[in-house]
């Protein structure tokens, strides 16, 4: 099976004045469709930098990054946004919703970027919001939503245009335990039901049960450690636990 994202010997070095700070050192990682990969590690270990490099937001100093089989390290700055647009959906720790747009318009905006407009965009936005049980909040502004609801809107927005890869940065950090679990169940289902490759950066050990694979990082390197929930001593959620029910079930539970 072809990896959705393939990272080879990737390094990233930040220059701070005259000194150079290595953030990533020789990273090799493949993420396949249908799996949830957790990137874990202490602060400053390079998790978010790796996520940015995988999402073609940050350029690696060295190495190769392939998205859907396409080598991106040789692409120009102008060629990278279309790759992000077509293949990658982002979910952010701070939700990053547009506060002046309604919930529906937030999702429509993502569709608009992908060329879906007008009535078709509205219909698709409603469908995506229904996946996260928020279609009734279509005309609500984000300021009137709870943290969990905001993150669900962010999930719906990330799904616009059916990207093959979902990259999530600390998606549960701003949520309570129950809501965090519901969001992670959604990630799990996106991978296992919809065949997305899902990469989640997290500090939250409570979400280990949703991982198909755990990648641990320290000092910009991938380090040995338990690579599955089972190895980590956490009962793994069965791969198809949510396939029988739509995503919203997780939130409605």
């Amino acid at each position, binding site marked *: 099976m072809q990896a959705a994202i393939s990272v080879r010997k990737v390094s990233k070095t930040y220059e701070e004045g005259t000194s150079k700070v290595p953030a990533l050192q020789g990273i090799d990682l493949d993420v396949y469709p249908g799996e949830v990969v957790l990137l874990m590690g202490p602060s400053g270990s390079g998790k*978010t930098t790796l*996520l*940015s490099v995988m*999402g073609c*937001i*940050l350029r690696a100093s060295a190495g190769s990054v392939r998205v859907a089989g396409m080598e991106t390290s040789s692409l120009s700055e*102008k060629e990278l*946004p*279309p*790759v*992000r*647009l*077509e293949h*990658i959906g*982002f979910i*952010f*720790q*701070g939700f*990053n919703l*547009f*506060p*002046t*747009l309604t919930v529906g*318009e*937030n999702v*429509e*905006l*993502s569709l*608009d*970027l992908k060329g879906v*407009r007008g009535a078709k965009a509205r219909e698709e936005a409603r469908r995506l919001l229904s996946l996260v049980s928020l279609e009734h909040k279509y005309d609500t502004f984000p300021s009137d939503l709870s943290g969990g609801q905001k993150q669900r809107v962010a999930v719906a927005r990330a799904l616009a245009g059916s990207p093959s890869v979902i990259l999530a*940065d*600390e998606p549960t*950090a701003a949520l309570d335990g129950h809501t965090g679990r519901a969001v992670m169940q959604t990630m799990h289902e996106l991978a296992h039901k919809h065949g997305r490759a899902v990469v989640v950066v997290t500090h939250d050990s409570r979400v280990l049960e949703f991982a198909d694979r755990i990648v641990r990082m320290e000092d910009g390197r991938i380090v040995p450690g338990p690579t599955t929930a089972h190895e980590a001593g956490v009962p793994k959620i069965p791969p198809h636990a949510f396939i029988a029910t739509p995503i919203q079930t997780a939130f409605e539970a």
Partner: protein
Amino acid sequence: MPPLARRNLFHDKIRFTVTLTGIVFSVVLIVVELGLFVGFTLTTSSIIDRSNADLWIVSRGTPYIEQGTPYSERKLYQVLATPGVAEAEKDIVRFGDWKTRDGASQGIQVVGFNPHSSLGGPWNVVAGSVDDLQKPDAVMVDEIYKKKLGVERIGDVFEIDGRRARVVGFTRGIRAFTTTPYVFTTFKNAQGFARVEADQTLFILVRAQAGANLKNLQRELQSRLTDVDVLTSSQFSRMTRIYWMFTTGAGIAVLIAAALGLVVGVVVVAQTIYATTMDHIREFGTLKAMGAGNGYIYRVIVTQAAMSAVMGYAMAMVVSALIVHASQSGGAAILLPWPMAVGIFFLSLLMCIGAAMVSINKVTHLDPAMVFKS
């Protein structure tokens, strides 16, 4: 596209109000200054432009209308004998001294013309008639200068250079750029009021026959007459306008004020749009991270600027119309012809979009990785 630009713009109502106020202030300033410039420019040459003459014959080297010097009126007969001339009349435009009833002096410009002809007379006569000027000592002034000249009604008597002058009518809207009011009278009276010798004139106004080639007639007259310049009305008008607006520096000052209005507008709009952009910088970063190209984001910012421009312009035009209306009864007319209004619309648009460039530059250099920083 979801209404991101509109929502961002209206989201902070106080900032939006400041933006609109800045644009309105700037546009009104530009309208007033340019309107004054247009008003002044037309005023300086109005006597020439409204003279109905095709050609003005002036003493050699006369740079503008107020600097006419006397020459022999016998040249009039040479002019009348020239083929292609339909009508020619002597004319005087010269500074004089008006004495009010309390004995105060007030500078005026005496305009002497032949009331029987169509050349060089007043226009917009709202009280009395041009024929009334044929009465001895009769003069006609503009309503705007009634107070300045101490005139209350028709029949009031004053002195011009020690000679009796009686007001027989009023015009409306004939302003003088030099602040010395025009006083219309017969050529004969004007010779006395302006101390011009009996056989002298300052100008000869010529109306060409229908179908005559004006350039040829100008050349022919120039070759027949000595010590004078034969100018088309448009040439003399332009010389007069250029003198007053640029040689004196008056026009430059007005234009500089208009340019300052533009600069103020650009700065105010740039600052407010920049502040709005910075308020939403994380959202623009999110858009970039999601894959939006710079062009998409520029469209949002430029749309904000254009919406500000259109709304600011509309409000400014209402204010400007009131100012223009109020200026009609004042000494300095502010004019707002429609081509200028259209031009200022595009100028406002350009000003606001230009101001948005600062924000666009900021967003262009925005690192989308910022979205991962909480």
